[in-house]
């Protein structure tokens, strides 16, 4: 089963990063705290994964203030959505191969 593997995105090897990307693909944008609640992860853990995705330019960040509270929102970039789709296709290929 060598074919599909090279399509696998290293950035999505981690389950949390894959989940973050799923949320951002399904929604226009999402804020830090809602992501934290949804994925049930710690601040530091989530922040490091978000940083990694940001470094790949898969997501974009916008910071603003809601009253006095900082509000950080994340958005999937076009590059990120394309990478996510490619990753899903790779998963699909793998399943198809195994069924054969």
């Amino acid at each position: 089963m060598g074919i599909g593997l090279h399509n696998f995105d290293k950035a999505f090897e981690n389950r949390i990063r894959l989940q973050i990307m799923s949320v951002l693909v399904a929604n226009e944008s999402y804020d830090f705290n809602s992501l934290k609640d949804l994925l049930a992860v710690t601040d530091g853990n989530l922040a490091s994964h978000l940083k990694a995705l940001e470094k790949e330019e898969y997501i974009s960040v916008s910071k603003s203030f809601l009253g006095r509270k900082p509000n950080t929102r994340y958005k999937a970039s076009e590059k990120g959505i394309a990478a996510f789709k490619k990753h899903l296709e790779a998963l699909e290929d793998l399943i198809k191969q195994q069924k054969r």
Partner: protein
Amino acid sequence: MENKDIYDDISSIKTIMERSAKFISLSGLSGVLAGIYALIGSFIAYKIIPIYIFPQLFAYYATGKEMTLGMSYDTDFNYITVLIVIAIVVLLLSISTGILFSIRKAKHKGQKVWNESSRALLKNGLLPLLAGGCFVVILLMQHYYGIIAPACLIFYGLGLAAASKYTYGDVKWLGLSEIILGLICMLLPLYGLLFWALGFGVLHILYGAIMYYKYDRGNRAA
């Protein structure tokens, strides 16, 4: 990549996408209760208001205010007030039941009630509802009582349909049913109360029960 890993990845993508985009703490049971409140309210209205008043109240729609024929402004004002009070009580009871049950269900699932998806749900549903609310108040002020029931049903249906993207798909079908019922009601203005009872009572019970059996029953978190 192990076989199991792939399936885990895919199922986690699917659930996270659904949970992030849809408000799934909506409770079917609260829909059933809202329907029961509406039926009780309609029944009380039906008992309080003498049957012969209905054509006089609602015939405004067809022929204008001149139709009052011997009915004083006071009588029409009193009966309409009764209907408004009942409708508001039913509305408040239904909303508080809905919120209460959603909080309970969210707690049971370890989720928050006030999250991205419930905000999106309200943001999208509220516009048709507010527009409809203003429209109905204006109808009341202008004494067009005959179109109030269909207007309530149609705008409520539009609100549900608009919000349905952010919760269970069944809500969209409930919305469409309300709109269709409202349009039929528009053709039969004298039966406003009956259609109101069908739309807010029977349909809520029906869809509430469907949603309860589909989503709630398994995990005991009605």
